C-alpha cells in the first residue's frame, strides 16, 4: 500500500477533494499505467495532463524528431527542443512537471512485430497517431490483447474519438472495417489542423484514461464523439458491436496482426 507524502496530499488535493476520486481514486491513478502512442498533437496534452494527474507509469512511443512545423500544436515540445527526439523532449517536460511519474520512452514506430509486447505492460492505451495503418494496428492489437484504448482522429477543425473496451464494446473496425484506400486520404499538405483542436481531442482522451483508472462515470464506449470546432457542435453517435465485425465478431477473419502499407505523407516532418 502506497502512503501519501505531505507533498503528494498537497499536489493532488484538488483530485482528492472530489467525491468520485478521493484518496482511493488518486491511489488508483498513481498505480495506473497508461501508454501514449504518438507524442504529437493528441499525445502532447494527454502526456502533460496524465503526468500532472500523477499516473504512476506513462509510456510514450514516437519515432520522430521535433520539427518547427510541430510547434503550432504539439504543446509538450518547445522551440528549444528542435531536432530532439519527441520522446526525449516529452520525457523532460513530464518529469519536470511531476517527478513522481515514471516515464518509459520508446523511440520507435509501432509495428505488427513489436506492438503486442509493448502494450501488454499497460492498463490503457491512447492512440495519438496520425495515420490509418497505425490506428488499425492499435485497434487490432488492443482487441487481441484485451487492453482498453482511446481512438482519436483530427482533421482541419474537427475531431473524433471513441473508447474501446475489448470484448465488451464496439471496436474501431465495427464501424470502419477496412482502412480507407490510400488515394482517398487527404495528404497532410491538403488537410491542415487548427492547433487547439488537437488539444481538445487529446484532453478528452486523457480524461477517458483517468476515468478508466478510477472506475468512475461511464466511458465513451459504443459511441463516436465528433466535434466541429468551427460551429462548436459536439455530436455523439451510438455505435454497436457487430457480430460480423472482421476483428471482434463471432467469426473473425483477422486472426493475426499485419502491417498495412503506409499512407503516403511526403510532407516534410
Amino acid at each position: 500500500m502506497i502512503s501519501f507524502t505531505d507533498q503528494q496530499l498537497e499536489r493532488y488535493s484538488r483530485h482528492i477533494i472530489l467525491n468520485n476520486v478521493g484518496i482511493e481514486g488518486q491511489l488508483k491513478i498513481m498505480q495506473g499505467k497508461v501508454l501514449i502512442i504518438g507524442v504529437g498533437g493528441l499525445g502532447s496534452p494527454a502526456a502533460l495532463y496524465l503526468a500532472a494527474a500523477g499516473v504512476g507509469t506513462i509510456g510514450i512511443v514516437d519515432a520522430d524528431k521535433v520539427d518547427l512545423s510541430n510547434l503550432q500544436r504539439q504543446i509538450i515540445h518547445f522551440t528549444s527542443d528542435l531536432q530532439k527526439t519527441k520522446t526525449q523532449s516529452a520525457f523532460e517536460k513530464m518529469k519536470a512537471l511531476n517527478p513522481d511519474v515514471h516515464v518509459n520512452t520508446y523511440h520507435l514506430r509501432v509495428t505488427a512485430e513489436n506492438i503486442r509486447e509493448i502494450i501488454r505492460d499497460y492498463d490503457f492505451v491512447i492512440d495519438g497517431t496520425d495515420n490509418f495503418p497505425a490506428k488499425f494496428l492499435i485497434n487490432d492489437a488492443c482487441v487481441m490483447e484485451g487492453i482498453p484504448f482511446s481512438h482519436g482522429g483530427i482533421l482541419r477543425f474537427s475531431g473524433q474519438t471513441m473508447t474501446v473496451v475489448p470484448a465488451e464494446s464496439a471496436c474501431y473496425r465495427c464501424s470502419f472495417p477496412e482502412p480507407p484506400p490510400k488515394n482517398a486520404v487527404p495528404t497532410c499538405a491538403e488537410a491542415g489542423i487548427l492547433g487547439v483542436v488537437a488539444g481538445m481531442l487529446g484532453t478528452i482522451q486523457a480524461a477517458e484514461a483517468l476515468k478508466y483508472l478510477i472506475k468512475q462515470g461511464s466511458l465513451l464506449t459504443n459511441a463516436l464523439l465528433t466535434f466541429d470546432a468551427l460551429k462548436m457542435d459536439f455530436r455523439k453517435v451510438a455505435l454497436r458491436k457487430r457480430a460480423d465485425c472482421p476483428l471482434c465478431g463471432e467469426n473473425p477473419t483477422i486472426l493475426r496482426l499485419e502491417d498495412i502499407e503506409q499512407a503516403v505523407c511526403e510532407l516534410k516532418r
Partner: protein
Amino acid sequence: MIIYVNGEPQEIKQQPFTVADLLVLNQVEMPEMVSVQLNGEFVKREDYQTIQINDGDEIDFLYFMGGGAR
C-alpha cells in the same frame, strides 16, 4: 418523406431512395472516406445500392478522421 441525416431533418421526394442515392444527394465527394449507419446499424458498402431508406429513418455518416497532425 422526412429522414434524419446526422441528426438533421431532410425532406426527400425521390422514391425509391437508397443509401447510394443519399450519398449522391448529400454530395459526399469521397464515399470511401465515410461509413454509413442506418437506424444505428452499420451498412455494408456492397449494400448501398440496394438498401432503401424509409420515412423517419436516421442515417449517420461516420467519417474517417486520421491525421494531418504530424
